[in-house]
């Protein structure tokens, strides 16, 4: 119950203002198609440099939570999901809005998000310290395998092609080695003076997540969203409350599904809404109503999306393995303040850890309250032409990358990585494993070197890294995640081939 002692920290004027600003800003950003939660958090990182670690994380955490929920606004009112996580919300939410029940859909969406989100953060509160203590038993070989596991799990589960996902992870791990070697001081892969200090993680995150989006918007040409905002009629919030708690099956299936999916590293929230929607439909007595503006669809999808947020931080805060690409960006936000996840975080920086986690709990309530008021404005912002959004994101990326260290080199690195990533994505590669490789690379290398030294003085490298219960377990999980993904890829290819043959 240590977290209770740090609740007061959330309510200091600056912290609360950041929480409020992050929540309202996140709701608006989340509603904007093309601005994913990951990109929003990456663009916000430069604004946290001058803040205390806890306050910086409050801003990032609030933005993470509310961008996921904000995506529902454009999904319901415009039929354009703010993020892939909100696809399932569109199915019934927009139909409800077209039937003149937009306010009801929005209210249910934000209330379900808050319930799911609070449950998810409570899981985070109670699971994280236990796992963090468990992580104390980890030696260098285990931490090395954990870092590799982080890259392979996201590389295999988050990518359409297993080989390309793993290759993206390798590219990220290689990028992390650029610069001067920590132990020998040797130059590695410095082919341009801008790379002398290595690749700055924040500049890289901005480039990898923001620039491909900018180029994608350019690639659409002089394109208008073409969507009209559906006007929202008044609806009693009490009626929405009653309806939400009368749909306990949808709410609990959504919340549990989202929480479980959030805990699995790499799976992320993109599928949480769709899986919850599908499961709720299967168990519902009103299956036929799904897709025709049924409130259970909205409740299941949105409670799952936000229930995923808290648990996706459990592997991050305990084992340094982000549960989603956005959690990977948050890891970058932690590292720039010199804070390493795991037991160190809870033993040496409990104020930072608990203030951040508590702020996410309060943020869920604020998101619910303000979401209902901001929805109309957010929907209008979602209609802003993509040309404006692309130009804004580009300029923010340039200024954000420069502000990291006041170096043009970081701006060049950001632009090169971003443009490269756009083309790599078009060829089937994925940004998430590359980012994980870049972030976890130094952790993997430091433990590889440290483990190697211990091994040389004791049992030898092969025995040290490849034997022992925990090592074998982690290796087995790495191999299982690859095998599972290969199996899934082959299965989906077989179905595609069958469909092609039938067509």
């Amino acid at each position, binding site marked *: 119950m240590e977290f209770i002692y740090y609740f007061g920290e959330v309510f200091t004027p600056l912290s609360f203002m950041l929480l409020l600003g992050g929540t309202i800003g996140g709701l608006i950003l989340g509603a904007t198609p093309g601005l994913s939660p990951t990109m929003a958090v990456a663009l916000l990182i*430069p*604004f946290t*440099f001058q803040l205390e670690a806890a306050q910086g994380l409050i801003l990032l955490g609030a933005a993470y939570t509310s961008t996921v929920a904000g995506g529902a606004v454009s999904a319901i009112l415009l039929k354009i999901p703010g993020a892939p996580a909100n696809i399932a919300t569109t199915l019934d939410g927009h139909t409800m809005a077209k039937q003149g029940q937009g306010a009801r859909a929005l209210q249910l969406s934000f209330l379900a998000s808050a319930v799911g989100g609070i449950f998810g953060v409570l899981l985070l509160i109670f699971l994280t310290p236990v796992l963090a203590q468990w992580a104390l038993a980890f030696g260098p070989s285990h931490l090395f395998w954990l870092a590799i596991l982080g890259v392979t799990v996201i590389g295999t589960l988050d990518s*359409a*092609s297993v*080989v390309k996902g*793993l*290759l993206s992870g*390798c*590219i990220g*791990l*290689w990028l992390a*080695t650029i610069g001067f*070697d920590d*132990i*020998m001081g*040797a130059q*590695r*892969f410095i082919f341009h003076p801008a790379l002398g200090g290595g690749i700055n993680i924040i500049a890289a995150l901005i480039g990898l997540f923001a*620039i491909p989006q*900018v*180029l994608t*918007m*350019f*690639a*659409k*040409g*002089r*394109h*208008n969203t073409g969507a009209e905002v559906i006007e929202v009629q008044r609806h009693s919030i009490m009626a929405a409350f009653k309806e939400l708690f009368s749909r306990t099956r949808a709410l609990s299936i959504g919340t549990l599904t989202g929480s479980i999916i959030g805990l699995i590293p790499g799976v992320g929230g993109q599928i949480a809404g769709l899986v919850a929607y599908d499961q709720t439909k299967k168990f519902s007595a009103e299956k036929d109503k799904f897709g025709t503006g049924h409130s259970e669809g909205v409740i299941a999808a949105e409670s799952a999306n936000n229930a995923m947020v808290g648990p996706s931080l459990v592997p991050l805060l305990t084992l340094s393995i982000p549960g989603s690409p956005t959690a990977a960006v948050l890891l970058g936000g932690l590292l720039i303040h010199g804070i390493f996840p795991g037991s160190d975080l809870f033993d040496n920086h409990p104020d930072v850890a608990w203030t951040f986690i508590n702020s996410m709990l309060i943020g869920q309530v604020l998101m619910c309250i303000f979401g209902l008021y901001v929805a109309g404005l957010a929907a209008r912002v979602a209609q802003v*032409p993509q*040309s*404006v959004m*692309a*130009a*804004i994101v*580009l*300029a923010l990326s*340039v*200024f954000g990358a*420069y*502000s990291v260290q*006041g170096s*043009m080199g970081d*701006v*060049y690195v950001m*632009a090169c990585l971003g*443009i490269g990533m756009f*083309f*790599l*994505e*078009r*060829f*089937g*590669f994925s940004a998430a494993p590359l980012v994980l490789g870049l972030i976890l690379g130094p952790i993997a*290398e430091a433990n*590889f*070197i440290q483990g*190697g030294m211990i091994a040389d003085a004791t049992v030898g490298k092969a025995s040290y890294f490849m034997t022992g219960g925990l090592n074998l377990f982690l290796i087995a999980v790495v191999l299982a995640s690859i095998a599972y993904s290969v199996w899934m890829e082959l299965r989906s*290819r077989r179905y595609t081939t069958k469909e092609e043959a039938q067509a």
Partner: protein
Amino acid sequence: MNRSQHIFGSGLVFAVGLWVTWISYTQQPAEAFLFPRLIATVFVVLAGWTFGKAVMGLSKVGNGVTRTMFVNMLPGLIITLVYVFWAAKTLGFYTATTIAFFILLSIYDPAPHSEVKIWIKRGIITAVFVAVMYGLFAMLLNVYTPREILF
């Protein structure tokens, strides 16, 4: 996506993989390249596999860049490159941002180019945006960006 695009994309990655492997195994001191060697080996094997599949026409994942996409994107890409690699450092961040923002807005804005009202609106949006950026970065975050020959 056509096969040549797959071959080009994966070929480029394979070439980088070969270069990384070459450097990792030839540069000294060898101790500093132990971890890069490990990565490079996996990197080059996976890149070789991907390239081989592309050459045999078996690459399925990835939509590539269509001609329309490329034509649409090209002006924006050129402006981005000029903005980042030349204008920001030479003209100053705020001047370069104003020019790049206004040009990008003008090129990609779906509103008609023939109306004076639209051009005034674009000018106002640009001015407001740059003022907000100045307020955020120069005044709030105290980030001193290169001012160079203009501002």
